[in-house]
């Protein structure tokens, strides 16, 4: 992906994306990647934090069978981990899935990616999965294809995947030690037998590692997912991270275990706890030192449709899809136009680099104090002015103000849904979601704001500001920044700077 404009160096300002740990630093993660990989994930909403604001993806549920048992899964329901939480999905035949993909791709031109993630293991259903990919590849070659797997059947189909131009594969690798594996996987189906214990785990691990190596050899991008299970593999995942990176995986996504008694899983029933947010963050941090980590994963359902955090699946049920009359060729041309204009928009947003304070607020360069950069969010419906009610915002534009001027950082979408039972309390309100979205920002500028959100924003350390309603964004931000400078709120706290200033 192309990078957002770099943050001012040596500051502790949060990175461009949300920095809450549930959403986030993948732009940083991407910065370490070779340009060739970044170009390939540029419009992939699951891999690029920035792209997920512009492009849509969909999953099709064509793969019901599985060839292993995980202790966090109950086959009576969809898998609660590995990107397919809790909701039983509509199983589609390959023909239905292809029709649905083509219908969505014609109606949601932002669509760039189709994935098969379940509800079982896609590669344990090779005919259903591969024939779906083949049909989409033939009829909509502009759509990127991706698949996730436990890895057991992976080496057998690596060549098929490469041939169908599938350039993103996610392997769930929870361990590289069979002793640990035996505590996660009670059995596998292998070589026409059910095999248990360490013997089973050893085979699975070998197949996962072999599959990873074979994909990398064929230049297929590999992401590794790991489920963090406290007391089982939490201490072990740093080693997993090192190994998969050394073999060429381009991203590692550590997800928290989801285990509730009601799910009827081994871990749920036996009282295995999930990691706390802090534990997850700590592990992600300790892995990120030597691995590109992905933190904006939303653990989507296996049949999700639309932009991340949004599900338009109800618009594309099979009965509706059957009735649609679509010109596929025209749809593809339209998609190309839309994608091009998205790319132009993204380039333009980056070019609106820094608007200097001089230009905006008439501050002369020599009057500038050494101050730190501050992130501010804006609620706007467009036209470059602050013209939206705080409560109506479904996304905020984030700007960075510093002594160098005002710079657009990027949009942040407010999640339409809670992001998972272990990530938030049930019934998180829209206000709470707004505030979570604004983490790292120190002010929010909007046309109007209610009393309740006002108080809660202040409690969260974010200054609400309705004084610049209907004013141009950059000028308003510059004005607020200068007020903050005046009030000493933007002073640099570092001892070093103070010494310099007094010297």
């Amino acid at each position, binding site marked *: 992906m192309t990078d957002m404009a770099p943050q001012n160096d040596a500051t502790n300002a949060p990175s461009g994306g949300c920095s809450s740990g549930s959403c986030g630093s993948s732009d940083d993660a991407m910065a370490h990647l070779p340009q060739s990989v970044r170009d390939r994930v540029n419009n992939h909403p699951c891999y690029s934090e920035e792209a997920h604001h512009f492009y849509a993806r969909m999953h099709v549920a064509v793969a019901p*069978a599985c060839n292993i048992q995980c*202790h966090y899964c109950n*086959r009576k329901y969809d898998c609660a981990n590995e990107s397919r939480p809790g909701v039983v999905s509509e199983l589609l035949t390959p023909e239905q899935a292809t029709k649905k993909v083509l219908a969505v791709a014609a109606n949601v031109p932002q669509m760039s990616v189709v994935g098969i993630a379940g509800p079982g293991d896609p590669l344990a259903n090779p005919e259903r999965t591969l024939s779906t990919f083949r049909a989409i590849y033939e009829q909509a070659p502009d759509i990127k294809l991706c698949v996730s797997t436990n890895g057991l059947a992976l080496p057998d189909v690596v060549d098929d995947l490469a041939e169908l131009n599938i350039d993103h594969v996610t392997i769930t690798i929870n361990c590289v030690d069979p002793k640990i594996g035996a505590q996660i996987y*009670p059995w596998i189906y292998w070589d026409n037998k059910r095999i248990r214990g360490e013997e089973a785990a050893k085979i699975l691990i070998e197949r996962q590692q072999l599959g990873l190596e074979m994909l990398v050899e064929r230049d297929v991008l590999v992401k590794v997912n790991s489920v963090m299970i406290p007391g089982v593999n939490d201490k072990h995942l740093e080693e997993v991270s090192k190994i998969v990176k050394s073999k060429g995986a381009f991203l590692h996504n550590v997800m928290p275990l989801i285990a509730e008694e*009601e799910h009827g899983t081994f871990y749920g*029933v036996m009282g295995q706890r999930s990691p706390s947010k802090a534990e997850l963050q700590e592990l992600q941090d300790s892995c990120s030192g030597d691995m590109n980590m992905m933190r904006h994963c939303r653990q989507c359902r296996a049949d999700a449709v639309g932009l991340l955090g949004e599900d338009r699946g109800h618009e594309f049920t099979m009965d509706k899809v059957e009735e649609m009359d679509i010109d596929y060729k025209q749809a593809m041309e339209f998609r190309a136009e839309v994608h091009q204009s998205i790319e132009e928009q993204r380039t333009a947003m980056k070019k609106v680099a820094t608007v200097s304070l001089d230009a905006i607020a008439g501050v002369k360069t020599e009057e500038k104090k050494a101050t730190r950069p501050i992130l501010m969010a804006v609620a706007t419906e467009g036209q470059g002015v602050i013209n939206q009610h705080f409560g109506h915002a479904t996304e905020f534009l984030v700007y960075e103000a510093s002594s160098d001027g005002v710079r657009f950082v990027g949009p942040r979408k407010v999640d339409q849904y809670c992001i998972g039972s272990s990530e938030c309390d049930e019934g998180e309100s829209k206000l709470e979601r707004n505030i979570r979205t604004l983490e790292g920002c120190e002010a929010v500028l909007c046309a109007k704001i209610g009393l309740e959100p006002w108080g809660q924003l202040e409690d969260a350390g974010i200054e609400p500001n309705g004084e610049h309603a209907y004013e141009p964004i950059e000028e308003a931000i510059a004005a607020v920044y200068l007020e903050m400078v005046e009030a000493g709120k933007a002073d640099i706290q570092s001892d070093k700077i103070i010494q310099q200033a007094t010297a």
Partner: protein
Amino acid sequence: MSYSITDLCVNCHACFDVCPNDAIYKASTQFMINKKTCTECEGDHDDAQCASICPIEGAILTPAGEPANPAGSLTGIPPLRLAEVMAEIQAR
């Protein structure tokens, strides 16, 4: 004699894909085994394939009518523990 599938079947297709005799078919609400074509995998495999891949305890019955995968044998959850948790959840 033949293996058979009970109404605990979750329609995951796994057995359907691995049966060497194509003896498994989709019925209206679940998969079923054709008694005439099931060979218990004799001559093809050491173990009955449907019983070896099925993820649901009690869903496949042996020719003798016994669960091929009794309670606790696949999930590792001791049946007593499961009963306790179920009772506790139902009492909420």
